């Protein structure tokens, strides 16, 4: 243990770690928002609610025997949830897209925002009625309990896993959109949907799948967040506004930009918590204002 600027290294690195963890979630969430915005031109206000759905899905799976006693259902743990929850949330996303969101593609952007805002209110409200505002606990999986003493700080295993996993997920998503054939189709479909359709590609289905992908990422982030933050109906409400700011800073529609700014802003937020705690909840919005002044298209956006 040593001191930097009069702070113990454990405190500083502890906050930096929290910042990095938050950043990992910002990156995964804003990635989904950026993909959906880039391809569908929809500002997905339901994203926070879908993140919450992912966390609740994991919680449900873990508590199946308690919720349905006598049905003989097994307890489904963290690792299977990591696969099942994003699929469930993705399927919910497909239904949402088919029933609601696809109806507003041809309308003014404002209607998409209002529609998704309404959906978010309904979903979060329903969970609030059922579970109240108290959070539901979700334990860290046994295989990731404990931690490493790095000398200057203590690194819990689960947090290390979240950071590594989110980097892999973000890179994988970026790669599949920017470097694969399917990704090329997707990008082409946003540039010129009519022409791409003329080549025999089912553009509406691609839009549905894109939405499911973005939403699935939110669900995945929700499962990963469950052991760190409490599983509560409001967990997505505060994060969604920060996510929008992150996406604006990164440059809307820029996938790479949203990943980098997600991690970066998480770290900056953590640092602010150390040096000027009062500013930690607003620092991201202030940075957004500064970025807008200097570079209206965002850090990685094309003008």
């Amino acid at each position, binding site marked *: 243990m040593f001191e930097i600027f009069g702070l113990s290294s454990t405190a500083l690195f502890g906050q930096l770690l929290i910042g990095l963890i938050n950043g990992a979630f910002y990156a995964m969430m804003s990635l989904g928002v950026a993909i959906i915005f880039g391809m569908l031109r929809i500002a997905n206000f339901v994203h926070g609610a879908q993140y919450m759905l992912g966390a609740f899905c994991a919680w449900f799976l873990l508590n199946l025997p308690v919720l349905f006693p006598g049905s003989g259902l097994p307890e489904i743990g963290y690792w299977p949830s990591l696969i099942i929850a994003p699929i469930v949330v993705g399927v919910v996303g497909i239904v949402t897209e088919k029933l609601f969101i696809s109806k507003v593609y041809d309308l003014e952007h*404002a209607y998409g925002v*209002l529609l998704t805002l*309404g959906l978010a*209110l309904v979903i979060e409200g329903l969970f609030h009625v059922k579970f109240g505002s108290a959070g539901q606990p979700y334990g860290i999986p046994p295989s990731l309990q404990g931690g490493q003493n790095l000398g200057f700080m203590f690194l819990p295993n689960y947090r290390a896993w979240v950071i590594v996993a989110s980097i892999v997920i973000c890179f994988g998503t970026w790669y599949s959109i920017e470097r694969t054939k399917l990704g090329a189709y997707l990008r082409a479909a946003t540039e010129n949907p009519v022409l791409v359709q003329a080549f025999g590609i089912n553009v509406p289905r691609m839009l549905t799948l894109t939405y499911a992908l973005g939403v699935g990422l939110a669900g995945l982030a929700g499962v990963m967040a469950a052991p760190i933050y409490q599983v509560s109906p409001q967990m997505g409400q505060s994060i969604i*506004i920060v996510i929008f700011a992150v996406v604006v800073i990164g440059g809307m529609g820029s996938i790479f930009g949203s990943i980098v700014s997600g991690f970066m802003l998480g770290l900056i937020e953590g640092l602010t918590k150390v040096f000027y705690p009062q500013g930690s909840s607003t620092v991201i*919005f202030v940075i957004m*204002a500064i970025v807008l002044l200097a570079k209206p298209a965002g850090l990685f956006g094309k003008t």
Partner: protein
Amino acid sequence: MAHVASHPPVPAQKTGLFAHTELTYLVAFLIIGVVAPYVLYPIFVMKVLCFALFACAYNLIFGYVGLLAFGHAAFFGAAAYVTAHSAKFWGITPEIAILAGTAVATVLGAAIGWLAIRRQGLYFAMITLALAQIVYFYALQAPWTHGEDGIQSVPRGKLFGFIDLNDMMSMYFFVLAVFLIGFAIVHRTIRSPFGQVLKSIRDNEPRALSLGYDTDRYKLMAFTLSAGLSGLAGGTKAIVFQLASLTDVFLFTSADVLLMVLIGGIGTILGPVVGAVTLVTMQNYLAGAGSWVLIIQGAIFVAFILMLRKGIVGTWLEYRETRRRRHVEAAKKAK
């Protein structure tokens, strides 16, 4: 950004300071407003009037400039806090306190607008949302706003130093006057040459720009005016309810005012008023239902977007217009 709502053709209007329809509306509101407190609970009507003014102010930027602002709670709430604080601790009369709140909201609107108009469409929505969040967190943390408690038991005081607003009817008629003035300002703005330019920006910004209009300046002026009037509504609300709280600056208040305009009819003159009456009434009846209020509000959002995008007033105007056309055609055939 192209037009948000389809808007019925404006009928030929009389020139002069007040157009014909404008006076009709004002007189109608005055009559309804005078009768209302004897039929309904005055506090309830005052709440409706404050939110109706807020919705009219919001409609100015959303309905007539086509900019989806998502942070109007910041102006409404900031004015409520400033009014409440100045009325409670500086011992000034309520109208000066409200004006102080309005002034702060106007300055805040100019600052946020200046930043936000750099981008359009969805970006504009997200930027106003994020900037309003700064105001929210400021209200949460600053010592003078008293965090979760808010500023409570604000004295209503004496209007102009001699009319005691603790009297329910004096308070009521003051609020009615504020609403009518605010409504007249919004209506006058929309019907003015300035308002015509705003509509042209909404319908086709590049063309307005090519005609030599400095569209950014117009947008900023409209945004600032909208913020100031939202502040007027927020300040008045703080005096009526003797309270300024975090709810006033929170995201849901921004969503509420949006929903009012959507329900009533985006870009219609009467829409915001109809929307405010509908939503405040609904919230009043559902006050005991807890979280269900949000669920129902969310469902109304979805239902109006999918089925009734023009809102109540917009749909009615459209219906009247088609019927009028049919009559004209029938008359032509008869000849």
